[in-house]
């Protein structure tokens, strides 16, 4: 039995409605408890800001796509190198660091739970292997279903229950956590050298539209009672005028779940563009934020862009090809058989570039114009908008109008006429930041009942203590202190152990992976469905029996069993 007592902590815990109360946190055997014995080890937090461990609900840190980003950018590996030190392995890389690099840098910022945003089911083993070497965070993987042949056939036949059954079988087989749709239908069209321009374009051969895919999969998700909602990367990413497509997509979504949203729309910054081409490109964050405010069934994340060098990687193959034609730099393109695809391009976002400046502003506007912080979460779609190490700067920008104005003065001068940002006075407070970086993310992922994102007794003892005194620091003026404070925790506690202390990771750690296993009736077990088996063996390059990820790929794991209505 190990016990730990964090004394005099200034706690912000939004899921329990606690805002800045000074209290003690008792921990026994990796869980929060009511009280501990006198023998417990004591950490005196001296009134420092203490929150549940950070949760990142959309990041790309592990898997084939991330690894190919490393592989094609050896120059990125020359940046951010650290030698072996104490319990820490050597790391390298800046926008696509090694797994240890990701894990240490997240941990130092107080993050304890991460969701890999896009795992191709066929290549799931690689993701799980890298999870094992991301030791200081619990992980889960959203699984890609955007161009799944069997699902599109079931949708064409109007059989939503079969869609759910295929998803149930696949998630259990690849040990995935939630459903990710990346440019639904578009990646399949890309295998024919085409794309879909918005939700009403039919996918070649299958003759289903993205709108049908989204609607069916959303309904299937609720039939399976998955913890997370459908996680959607809308069609038409990164093109001027795409905001209308985004609004049309949001309009498709019914409110089907009382506990959480029905749709998680990711990196909405990339989907909130006005104009008809790059010359009259402008921000449409206002209509998007207004629309989301009226629909509690939608939660989005920012996908904030920050200036500097990074790597874009997505399952959205056709979009990356368009990006390649703009940049004429390195490009990778990948096809995942009957499932999806991907593309990768290194990019540099520049202050002097008008388009990049507008993108930077749009992300901030989405966060500031969305009244309810539970509906707009803080991400950069790491590393697409910026590497996650920029989160503290984004927090600084959201909390300080002064900082925003200072930054605004350094970007392209024409930005002012294209974006509403300069007129926005709102400055987020500590509580709202806590919602956007942990509580809201845990709620959106549906993992608060599993003890994530809050500090109630019974919760996992994941705690971040930041060297900030919220009664002394004025974030609006002293934004640099806020940035420094969120960059380096005083203590990061994971599963009841101190894992990082003032920028140093002090233990080796061991990761746990969350995955779901929906229970379906015999009739809907795709493992025994003759048609599914026949098509699988005919079109995949692997045998169906070799497809599921074996248990040994999951060192420590937590299976979430759900009762499906099938």
């Amino acid at each position, binding site marked *: 039995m190990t016990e730990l007592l964090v004394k005099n902590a200034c706690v912000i815990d939004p899921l329990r409605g606690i805002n800045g109360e000074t209290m003690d946190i008792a921990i026994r055997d990796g869980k929060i408890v009511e009280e501990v014995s006198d023998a417990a080890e004591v950490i005196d937090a001296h009134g420092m800001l203490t929150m549940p461990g950070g949760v990142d609900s959309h990041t790309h840190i592990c898997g084939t796509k991330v690894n190919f980003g490393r592989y*094609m950018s*050896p*120059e*990125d590996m*020359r940046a951010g190198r650290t030698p072996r030190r104490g319990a820490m392995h050597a790391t390298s890389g800046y926008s696509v660091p090694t797994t240890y690099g990701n894990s240490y840098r997240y941990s130092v910022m107080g993050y304890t739970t991460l969701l890999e945003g896009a795992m191709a089911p066929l290549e799931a083993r690689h993701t799980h292997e890298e999870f094992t070497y991301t030791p200081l965070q619990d992980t889960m993987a959203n699984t890609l279903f955007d161009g799944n042949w069997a699902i599109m056939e079931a949708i064409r036949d109007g059989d939503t229950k079969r869609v759910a059954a295929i998803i149930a079988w696949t998630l259990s087989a690849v040990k995935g956590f939630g459903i990710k749709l990346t440019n639904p239908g578009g990646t399949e069209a890309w295998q024919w050298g085409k794309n879909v321009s918005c939700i009403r374009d039919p996918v070649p051969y299958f003759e289903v539209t993205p709108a049908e895919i989204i609607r069916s999969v959303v309904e299937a998700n609720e039939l399976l009672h998955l913890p997370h909602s459908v996680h959607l990367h809308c069609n038409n990413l990164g093109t001027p005028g795409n905001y209308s497509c985004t609004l049309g997509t949001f309009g498709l979504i019914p409110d089907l779940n009382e506990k959480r949203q029905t749709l998680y729309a990711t990196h909405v910054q990339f989907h909130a563009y006005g104009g008809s081409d790059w010359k009259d490109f402008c921000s449409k964050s206002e209509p998007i934020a207004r629309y989301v405010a009226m629909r509690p069934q939608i939660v989005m994340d920012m996908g904030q862009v920050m200036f500097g060098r990074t790597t874009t990687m997505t399952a959205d193959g056709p979009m990356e090809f368009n990006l390649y034609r703009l940049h004429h*730099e*390195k490009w990778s393109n990948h096809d995942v058989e009957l499932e999806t695809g991907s593309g990768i391009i290194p990019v540099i976002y520049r202050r002097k570039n008008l388009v990049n400046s507008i993108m930077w502003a749009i992300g901030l506007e989405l966060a500031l114009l969305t009244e309810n912080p539970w509906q707009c979460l803080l991400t950069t779609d790491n590393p697409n908008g910026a590497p996650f190490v920029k989160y503290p700067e984004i927090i600084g920008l959201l909390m300080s109008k002064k900082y925003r104005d200072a930054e605004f003065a350094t970007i392209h001068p024409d930005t002012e006429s294209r974006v509403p940002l300069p007129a926005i006075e709102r400055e987020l407070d500590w509580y709202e930041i806590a919602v956007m970086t942990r509580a809201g993310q845990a709620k959106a992922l549906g993992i608060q009942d599993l003890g994530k994102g809050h500090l109630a007794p019974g919760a996992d003892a994941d705690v971040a203590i930041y060297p900030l005194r919220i009664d002394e620091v004025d974030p609006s003026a002293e934004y640099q202190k806020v940035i420094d404070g969120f960059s380096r925790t005083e203590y990061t506690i994971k599963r009841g152990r101190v894992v990082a202390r003032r920028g140093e990771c002090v233990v080796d750690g061991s990761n746990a992976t969350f995955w779901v296993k929906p229970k379906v009736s015999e009739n809907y077990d795709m493992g025994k469905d003759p048609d599914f088996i026949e098509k699988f063996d005919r079109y995949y390059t692997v045998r169906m029996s070799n497809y599921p990820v074996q248990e040994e790929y999951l060192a420590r794991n937590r299976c979430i069993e759900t009762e499906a209505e099938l």
Partner: protein
Amino acid sequence: MKVMLAMKPAAKWFIPIEAESIVPKNFLSGTDLLVWRGNRELRLDEVFSVSVEGDADRSEEVEVVLSGDTFRLKRVGEYMDGGTITVLGGIGMHCGNFMSGGTIEIHGNADGWLGREMAGGAIVCRGDAADYCASGYRGGRKGMTGGTVEVFGRAGDFLAESLAGGTVIVHGDAGDMPGAEMRGGTLVVNGNCSRPAANMKGGSCYVYGTAQRMIPTFRKIGTVQHEGRALIRFSGDLANRGKGNLFVKGYEYLD
């Protein structure tokens, strides 16, 4: 000030030594420097017989002379900004990485990556240079940006890869793919080479011998006179918008 470093014979002579501390500037404050042999850090005088003549206030006044079996001595002159390094024999990989000033003279052969990503100064190699002489590094967008590299013998493959500025002159032949991805600067190969200037975006490449396996995406423009030679001019790689200039004495396409 003249610093003489004579390599001591070592039992395990085959283990490379990483000696990025051997830079003229560092000798202004004495010879108390460290180098790595494999995973062990050693004092300079454990590896070399060190003798110093005179003194100096500026790195420009320092001359370092290396002798003995130095062909496994790596990273000599890395980030050097002034002064002189003379190598009486051969030198190991990555000599003169990132150098911005001063002179390195090598009397023997140089191993790979000589003058990688250099920004200024001069390197003279009296023998041959191995692969990736005066080049960039893996994945990098820009290679050498300034200074001069002159090789009197032959050069290996990927000579001046990603060249972005400065001058590279090879008096003998060069290997495969000299000037690949070059975007600026001048590359001169006095002998023959294979597939010059692939995917070039800018700069000028001169081949005074024969360009073998000439790349088909260069468009022949005509004949020009250059420093007393009649050369055939091609415009830069059409696969990359055709912005560079390639001049060759003779050329042959792959059959």
